[in-house]
């Protein structure tokens, strides 16, 4: 799998060894890498083509800013263009008289039922009165699934079993919502293939009788090239008002989102980030763009960090990180902070440059390892933590004894620490990362 696109482009430009203004030849070479990255991320082939044409137009002749390398300059343009393509995060349109009907549609297994519950919870938390409608009369226990979710969240579910046609159920649900003074009616329709004529006609009918204000396509972030056809077919048939990308919590690059957005022009409104009902977020274009480019989910990490980081501590660490005054004591502090953020390799997977390393470390290893590292550094004196160089053989033996580890392990830690230090230094000279220091500390 490719690593950081920025690194790759840098390698390309190092070979070319040109600086200053980007010429057509350089840009072509660079865009070949970008193309691969986008395809690897499952962005549709045709969408990639159009996209690259736009980037090329902008890149040729662009002046490379002093603080950027040519590779970074191209990445910057690609990133900006991606953001433009992904568009502004979409908001739900719940204007006008209640009840507002939201219809969820999509392929089988894309996550409609879970998303219906998440959406209902979100709306309820914002002070509305939602009602869920079980309109999947086909999949065994689909109705029950929605009923159970409703019960869990204490949100009413309108269900009429699986003998009544879904358009009828949905129509009844809307009348029921009017009587019961519900504000929002969320229709959980059955999964269907976009080429299934009968099923597409059914969902069209549901739309006709319920007049939804929002028709949202729920799509799996892991979807491949087919995404364009799926989105196009649902859009042509139903006139989509938005997209919801699900299962974003995995390692799918989510290029399908670009494809779907490009082919329908409708905004992406939410992202599903886990199985729990509260794992539901508004769409952040910047995060997705970073991910599609394989730049790591920096912003997500930063946000996670912000939630869990002790602010003063973080500001201090960030500054040290960037000034390379980072010592073993800070390393220990980092480890403790990171432990709060979740399993280490999940955290590492989000950091550019580290995600490769994260794959080499098994989760068992990392968490056990963390504890040992913690024990080792804790057994060192402050002087040793600040100046790891003073750790001679006898000091190491003492630390080993104190932490119940071996001298060999201590050597390893010191080497690892040096590597981290080096990496941090690199990061601090990378303009993309420079903002990080401030971000850890801000708020």
């Amino acid at each position: 799998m490719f690593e950081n696109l920025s690194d790759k482009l840098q390698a390309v430009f190092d070979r070319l060894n040109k600086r200053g203004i980007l010429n057509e030849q350089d840009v072509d070479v660079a865009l070949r890498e970008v193309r691969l990255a986008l395809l690897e991320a499952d962005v549709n082939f045709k969408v990639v083509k159009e996209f690259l044409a736009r980037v090329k137009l902008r890149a040729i002749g662009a002046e490379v800013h002093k603080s950027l390398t040519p590779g970074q300059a191209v990445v910057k343009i690609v990133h900006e263009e991606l953001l433009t393509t992904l568009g502004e995060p979409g908001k739900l349109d719940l204007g006008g008289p209640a009840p507002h009907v939201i219809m969820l549609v999509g392929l089988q297994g894309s996550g409609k039922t879970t998303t219906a519950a998440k959406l209902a919870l979100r709306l309820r938390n914002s002070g509305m009165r939602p009602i869920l409608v079980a309109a999947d009369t086909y999949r065994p226990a689909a109705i029950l699934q929605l009923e159970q979710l409703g019960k869990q969240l204490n949100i009413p579910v309108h269900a009429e079993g699986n003998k009544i046609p879904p358009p009828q159920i949905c129509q009844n649900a809307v009348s029921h919502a009017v009587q019961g003074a519900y504000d929002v009616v969320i229709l959980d329709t059955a999964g269907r293939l976009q080429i299934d004529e009968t099923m597409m006609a059914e969902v069209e009918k549901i739309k006709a009788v319920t007049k939804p204000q929002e028709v949202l396509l729920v799509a799996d972030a892991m979807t491949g090239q087919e995404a364009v056809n799926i989105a196009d077919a649902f859009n042509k048939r139903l006139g989509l008002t938005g997209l919801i990308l699900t299962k974003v919590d995995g390692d799918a690059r989510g290029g399908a989102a670009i494809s779907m957005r490009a082919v329908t022009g409708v905004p992406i409104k939410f992202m599903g980030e886990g199985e729990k009902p509260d794992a539901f977020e508004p769409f952040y274009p910047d995060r997705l763009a970073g991910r599609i480019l394989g730049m790591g989910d920096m912003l997500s990490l930063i946000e996670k960090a912000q939630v869990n980081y002790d602010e003063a501590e973080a500001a201090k660490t960030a500054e040290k990180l960037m000034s390379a005054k980072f010592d073993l004591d800070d390393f220990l502090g980092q480890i403790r902070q990171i432990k709060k953020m979740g399993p280490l390799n999940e955290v590492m997977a989000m950091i550019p440059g580290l995600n490769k390393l994260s794959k080499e470390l098994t989760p068992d290893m990392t968490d056990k390892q963390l504890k040992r590292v913690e024990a080792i550094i804790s057994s060192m004196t402050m002087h040793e933590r600040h100046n790891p160089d003073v750790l001679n053989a006898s000091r190491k033996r003492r630390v080993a004894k104190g932490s119940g580890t071996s001298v060999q392990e201590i050597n390893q830690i010191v080497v690892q620490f040096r590597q981290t230090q080096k990496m941090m230094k690199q990061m601090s000279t990378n303009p993309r990362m420079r903002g990080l220091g401030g971000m850890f500390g801000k708020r």
Partner: protein
Amino acid sequence: MPSLRETLARTRNSILGRIQTVLGQADISDETWDDLESLLLQSDIGAPTTEKLLTNLRKRAASEGIVKASALRGVLRSELVALLGPKATPVHDAKLLLEVIMVVGVNGSGKTTSIAKLCHLYLKHGRKIVLAAADTFRAAAIDQLQIWGERSGVPVIAGAPNSDPGAVVYDAVQASFNRKADLLIVDTAGRLHTKHNLMQELKKLRNVLSRSVHDAPHQTLLVIDAANGQNAINQAKGFAEAVGVTGVILTKLDGTPKGGVTFAIVNELGIPIRYIGTGEKMTDLQEFDPEAFVANLFDEKE
């Protein structure tokens, strides 16, 4: 049972099906290779495998003296079939008292439905089956499996929602022995291969099985949605590393011909495709046949 081709007859927009039009009648040129590349990439075959295929095609075109672009179609077909290797024919050890199949995969890939289909298939072979409802997490997952169990007359061993799936699996093994069943199929909760804790849980399930039945699970089938793109490779890697995967069930092939990522999974990871799912009914499962799969990608109709 309808053949795969019949099932898919209504889909006419196969990507590789356009190959003849795209290649045309001209001689091979740079454009030919670009066009071929674009077709392959649009089939989810992925950049690395596409590159590999094109290299082979170029070599063969040179050595076999192929001049007409249209002649590449047949060569590509044979290369694709070659990538998939021979049809995997699993051997069922009849001496085995209880065969155990564990079904795993990401959320919504089609595990539970595929199990219903496997039941249908294996019942036809005269097997005596027990199902274990080890997805105790997702709402109504147990009920879903139970409904399928009722439809095919196969007992389902289940615990309470949110109970320990390990305990369910253990009970199911005991029940299988008690009922003298010869096949236990375990339905597991959907999980993303990147979730450490959930993969650990799956390992535990596997251990419960291997401790209670000799050499179990005898098959670990990974269910992959054919509409998935390159992430399917990560899924295969992740599950294979955690619990070992003996074969893949590729589902939802009743849409447009898709599943190009299969080539990388078979070729790079060496995991064979065992079955394909072509619909939502119990009867919609077929053994994977490389030739037919490739033919389907080309959407060939005589």
